């Protein structure tokens, strides 16, 4: 389509994005819009900056309309301004080309400015189950459900495409005169772009429904990125690592995938205590854990969680140990739990890091302490006395926050802004840990205080999250029903005992390795399961029940057992397959 050398071959200068959207009303459907802009060869453009223009081709589900698709619709957007408080005027366009022009792409031999994007071959592909065309040629459609998503894609791509200025071309205003500097300004690749370069292919693979089978940690990914940083002249140091990880998280969030889905694993670094049990908070457990507890209180120390846990569980409250800081998982859990109807609160030390941790959760999440209120409640003085030495000096090894930023944070967050809650002057040099309050008051009293505060913050709670209104009633079934199950267990154990012993001997001393899953299946389904299946006594009892069921018309045997296959069915099916292949 384009002659060799016409397009830029440096892949770092190509901009690509895929944006996802969902319609809100019926017809409801999800869709995606991908946009790629490949700049024309930069040397070629520098030689004749007025001679080339961008070109757009639109596709729908990868298919091209002979007359071209411009995704007609009513485009309205306001560009973000770097100058704070300055509101840019709203721009309008009737199709994607107008929108691209609004984002400084040049399509015709119009006058240009140095801030215009260099000419590109642009391709947009709408992926949607439903497209309502307004013309039989199917070149025109009602693009209104897609417009916002298309604008987002245009904005993303435009941010990555170079301007004339960046390639060393300056236009005189309102004329076709220009000057080309001898050297193009070196373009800097950012950490964020490297993260996209590394992870976008994986994300797109997952979005296509494929699975990523390899696993690596965020830190190992960082090491994989180092050669790319060198290659693309990225400015970085080891201090860039947290930002690198944040870019990973943001990118995953933007594309609606979990890090684990794209093969990045992170250790669970937060845990929940509920009903006497600890649960690791991780990608696999987060959804279930979000449903536990009428209230979830995030506490930064494990010992405190343990001490308060038994009192909290009595009232259906779950406690989360965040290990000193809010991990991504803990933040995600808070978000999910909030959506699912739990009350969320946080309890941290009375120090600057404690304030910082709490500020990570949104302002509607109350901080229960430690603060001036708890000190007043338990009559704890700001200065140590002979009997009560609860205050310790605060000396940060690394200053986490400048005083100005601390004051700004406290002033702008209504949870901390009152002097009755946080005393900045006190925090500058002192701290009071939760442990100190616990030592001073004991767990029960401390929990009582927290519970009262929770009640004040959230007067009502949904106990359906904790109490099952339709619990398992099997313990109240007639004894014979329970005895039947016990009888089957006993009989099965007895008849399989000799074979079990044989298996025990075999497993004791194995030469090399065995596939555990396969072996377990062999033992359960074939060696032991088959004995149980073929036991005449068990069969007779079952048949007697079936006959009774038929006679009385209870329809017990019509009840579906479960979605997973029963052993009987799976063994029978496999035997059938085996016979088939032998034939």
């Amino acid at each position, binding site marked *: *389509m384009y002659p060799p050398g016409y397009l830029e071959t440096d892949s770092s200068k190509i901009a690509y994005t895929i944006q996802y959207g969902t319609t809100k009303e*019926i*017809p*409801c*459907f999800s869709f995606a819009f*991908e946009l790629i802009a490949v700049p024309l060869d930069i040397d070629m453009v520098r030689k004749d900056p007025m001679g080339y223009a961008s070109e757009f*081709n639109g*596709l*729908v*589900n*990868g*298919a*091209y*309309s*002979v*007359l071209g698709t411009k995704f007609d619709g009513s485009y309205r957007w306001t560009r973000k301004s770097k100058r704070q408080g300055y509101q840019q005027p709203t721009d309008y366009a009737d199709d994607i080309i107008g929108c691209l022009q609004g984002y400084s792409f040049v399509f015709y031999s119009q006058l240009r400015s140095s801030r215009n994007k260099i000419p590109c071959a642009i*391709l947009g*592909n709408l*992926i*949607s*189950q*439903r497209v309502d065309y307004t*013309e*039989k*040629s*199917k*070149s025109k459609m009602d693009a209104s459900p897609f417009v916002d998503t298309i604008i987002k894609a245009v904005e993303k791509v435009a941010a990555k495409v170079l301007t004339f200025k960046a390639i060393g071309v300056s236009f005189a205003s309102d004329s076709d005169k220009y000057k080309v500097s001898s050297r193009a300004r070196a373009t800097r690749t950012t950490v964020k772009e490297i993260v996209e370069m590394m992870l976008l292919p994986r994300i797109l*693979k997952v979005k*296509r*429904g*494929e699975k990523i089978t390899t696993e690596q940690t965020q830190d190992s990914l960082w090491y994989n990125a180092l050669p790319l940083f060198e290659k693309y002249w990225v400015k970085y140091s080891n201090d860039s690592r947290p930002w690198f990880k944040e870019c990973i998280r943001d990118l995953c969030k933007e594309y609606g995938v979990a890090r684990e889905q794209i093969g990045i694993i992170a250790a669970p670094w937060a845990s929940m205590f509920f009903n006497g049990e600890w649960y690791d908070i991780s990608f696999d457990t987060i959804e279930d854990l979000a449903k536990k507890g009428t209230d979830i209180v995030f506490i930064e120390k494990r010992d405190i969680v343990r001490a308060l846990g038994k009192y909290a569980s009595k009232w259906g409250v779950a406690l989360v140990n965040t290990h000193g800081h809010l991990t991504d998982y803990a933040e995600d859990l808070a978000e999910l739990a909030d959506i699912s109807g739990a009350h969320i609160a946080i309890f941290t030390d009375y120090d600057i890091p404690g304030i910082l941790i709490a500020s990570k959760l949104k302002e509607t999440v109350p901080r229960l302490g430690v603060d001036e209120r708890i000190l007043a409640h338990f009559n704890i003085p700001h200065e140590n006395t002979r009997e009560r030495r609860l205050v310790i000096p605060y000396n940060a090894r690394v200053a986490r926050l400048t005083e100005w930023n601390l004051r700004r944070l406290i002033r702008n967050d209504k949870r901390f802004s009152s002097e009755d809650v946080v005393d900045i002057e006190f925090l500058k040099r002192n701290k009071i840990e939760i442990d100190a309050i616990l030592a001073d008051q004991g767990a029960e009293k401390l929990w009582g205080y927290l519970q009262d505060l929770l009640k004040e913050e959230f007067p009502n709670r949904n106990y359906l999250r904790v109490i099952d209104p339709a619990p398992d009633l099997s313990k109240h079934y007639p004894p014979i029903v329970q005895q039947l199950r016990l009888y089957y267990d006993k009989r099965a154990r007895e008849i399989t005992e000799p074979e079990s012993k044989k298996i025990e001997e075999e497993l004791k001393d194995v030469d090399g390795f065995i596939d555990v899953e396969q072996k377990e299946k062999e033992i359960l389904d074939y060696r032991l399961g088959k004995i149980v299946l073929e036991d005449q006594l068990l069969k007779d009892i079952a048949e007697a029940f079936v006959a009774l069921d038929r006679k009385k018309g209870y329809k017990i045997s019509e009840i*579906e057992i479960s979605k997973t296959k029963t052993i009987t069915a799976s063994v029978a099916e496999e035997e059938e397959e085996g016979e088939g292949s032998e034939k």
Partner: protein
Amino acid sequence: MQFFKADGMKEATGYGEPKDWYFIIVKELLDNAIDWLRDNYRGSADAKVTASFTINEDRTQLNCKVRNSNPANKPVHAFTQLDNILNYNMTFGSKQNEYRATRGQLGDGLKRIMGLPFILMNIGDDTSAFFKKQWDIPMYFRVNGIERQAIVKVNLGASEAINQIAESPARLPHTSTEIEVTLPIINEVKDYVTLATIERHCRLSTCVTTDISFDIEIVDKVLQAKGYRGKAIISLEAKHPIPKNLHNSTSVLIYRPAEFVSRIESVYDRENTSVYQVIRKFEEGAQMSKSVFDKLLQVRDSNKLSLAEFMNRPDYQEKMLALYNLLMEEANK
């Protein structure tokens, strides 16, 4: 007779100029091949489309040949029912009212392709009504190892189009599906239907398709006769298998109530299609137990209740509404 009149072509496609019609054919043939592979070879990494577009020595004909792989020799039902597919008096579509992210856009595509040579050769010629000029180069359908060729004889005056479909006795050495059609290149489009424009359309039709391999050859024998290369090759390797979850059933939420009714009522073979078969095509219908539908429709087995029978029931409208509400309820859970 709309399939054999320029006005019919304009009306059906929305494209007013004959020069665009050639590219509709190029695109439609490629799109159909891609859609078929995606429907029938999900998870396959070897799906391939091979095509050739050849302009003949005197630039009077464009031969289009598009083939998609079918190594498992899966039956291609559409082409075993050529009489239906090429029946100009009825609509025979398997995809109508379905919302899926597919590519083929032209309704009754094959009939349009079949009729186009006749339209092109008679453009601006009023005498065509007198049953004189016919297009004698057959359209070929090669599927499941069998070659069928079809010619249509058109009598506009009598509003008559008669297909002559013949099956070749010899079996093909391959099981791929191949459509071959030759179009006359009329004078007014000679500057537009060129190697470069065909290549451009082929590239645009394939450039974002990353799950299927392409081998496309475009040849201009006029250029070759003049000593130029006269050939363009598009060779693209699939980057990944066809996604396994592609074109899964669609949610009822994507349908407006009228479209839902139409989706069910527009099934062509109502006698042999059960209500449950259609319900299962909705994501929610596939997830719910059949017994729920048996109960709602008050039958022992909704898989044995044909659509025709259902539509004749006195409570049909009431039950359709109940079905719609049930699926919506499931979707909103």
